[in-house]
């Protein structure tokens, strides 16, 4: 493309440092003892407690059932992250498609109903949501954990924007070719949306991954513990009775960042420049 300017690089490097430095500090601090962290704060250099911290976090079995460990928590967070993002993409791509590409009464009305779900965050409707989920018998289940979270319009809104920006000529050409709504969607629109789907997947994966309030409220089974629940439990310190094990909390936080990074790595090749297939 155009020549790479030094200032561009500088801006990017500065941006990277601003965003990444805290993450390095989290990792470095997790290799120290809790007393060190309490007395001297977050550390920039690696300490001597790496093995003790990480082996405890990864391999210790804690909890009343003695089955809670990092593997279990990561697994649950993974299920939430994947279930949430996949579920969201599935229903929102088709819903947005209906809104944008079809002329049907109440289309606008439905869009606004869907959109209104952004206006009352889960925390505010959490007690009634609990009752609903309980009535449906979904307490202590992955379905109950994931479905209520999907009920918000972000992805549908996002795809609506994107579909509206797709040039008309593409649809015209497809119709001339005799494509019906189904073929148009599957063969043309979806491939065009690859980048957008990747973006939404990456972001929604983390939203599901980081859920705290809803899981802790509606599960009473330790086998559903997620990573964030684990982190907050370690940090739950009352009246200074004991020093919280900051090193373990930081280690868990660091581990919790790794799978989303892998998600980004996997999907980054979908962030491909240009729309090669659309060139006709």
């Amino acid at each position, binding site marked *: *493309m*155009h020549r*790479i300017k030094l200032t561009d690089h500088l801006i990017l490097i500065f941006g990277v440092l601003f965003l990444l430095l805290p993450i390095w500090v989290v990792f470095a601090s997790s290799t120290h003892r809790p007393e060190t962290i309490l007395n001297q704060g*977050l550390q920039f250099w690696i300490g001597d407690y790496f093995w003790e911290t990480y082996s405890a976090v990864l391999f210790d079995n804690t909890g009343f059932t003695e089955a809670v460990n990092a593997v279990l928590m990561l697994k649950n967070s993974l299920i939430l992250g994947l279930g949430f993002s996949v579920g969201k993409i599935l229903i929102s791509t088709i819903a947005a498609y209906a809104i944008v590409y079809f002329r049907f009464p109440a289309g606008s009305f*439905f869009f606004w109903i869907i959109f209104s779900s952004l206006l009352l965050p889960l*925390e505010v409707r959490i007690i009634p949501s609990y009752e609903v989920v309980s009535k449906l018998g979904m307490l202590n289940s992955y379905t109950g954990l994931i479905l209520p979270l999907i009920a918000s319009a972000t992805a549908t809104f996002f795809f609506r924007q994107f579909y509206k920006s797709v040039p008309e000529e593409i649809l015209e050409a497809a119709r001339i070719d005799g494509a019906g709504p189904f073929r148009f969607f599957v063969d043309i629109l979806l491939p065009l949306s690859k980048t957008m789907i990747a973006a939404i997947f990456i972001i929604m994966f983390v939203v599901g991954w980081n859920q705290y309030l809803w899981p802790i409220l509606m599960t009473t089974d330790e086998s559903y513990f997620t990573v964030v629940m684990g982190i907050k439990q370690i940090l739950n310190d009352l009246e200074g009775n004991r020093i919280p094990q900051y090193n373990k909390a930081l280690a868990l936080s660091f581990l919790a960042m790794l799978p989303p990074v892998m998600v980004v790595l996997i999907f980054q090749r979908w962030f491909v420049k*240009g729309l090669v297939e659309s*060139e006709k």
Partner: protein
Amino acid sequence: MKRQQFDSSTLPYLLIAPQLAIIFIFFVWPAAQAVYQSFMLEDPFGLASQFVGFDNFIDVVSNEHYARSALFTALFSGLVAFLSMAIALLLAVKADGILHGQSAYKIMLTWVYAVAPAVAGMMGVFLFDRSIGPLNHLFNATGWPFNPQLDVFDASVTVILVSVWKQISVNFIYFLAGLQSIPRAVREAALIDCRNGFRRFWTVTLPLLAPTGFFVLVINITYAFFETFGVIDTMTRGAPGGGTATLVYKVYQDGFLGADIGGSSAQSVILMILVLGLTIVQFRVLEKRIHY
């Protein structure tokens, strides 16, 4: 909104049904209950309740701290939305334009979004701690008597900074995706027509990015209004003097922490109407200018 569309009687309903079903069961039904509760005075366990009409709303609005909180919310949301969008846009445009090392930058910049709000808040607490926080030392070293535990302005700076930090990554992903879906032919043509990078951005890239940009704007306003209480809860709990409590944090305080169901429901209804109004304005005023 012209545009070519399919005429099919049943298909659109089928396509939109799953989303609508989930929304009705898991959003509208609980939300309706929350709205209903805003008109009631109820003990949290649901054992005694009475209808009080608009009393809860009057109580909420006549509270002098509500007005203060509303003002802070407006300032906070505006700053967080603007800063995180502007910085993310800058980074996205630059990352988009660079050929070599693009993936490395992209991965490193997007990593941050994975940090859970609770964790970001905890890091913020450590970074701004009075005795051991490096950022606290940094600010004090520049001559600013930085004291977030006692000074409202300083405390506001800390929560804004951490909220912006968290949101930049997400916006970066959205903007980058939006930039990448501009057809290559269009970009190359623009390059030929307009050599000045800045001009090119304003006249070509930005309008093409507008649909994504509009989405990002609405989402960021929503994020700043609704999703930031996690950071506030971990870092300041609305202190000092209640000065860093946003409207949604007050809802969380009164409802989740204080078990005042009627009061917090009334507050959330007011908040919902506020943001809905804001959003309608955005749709009416801004969306008209976007050429899809």
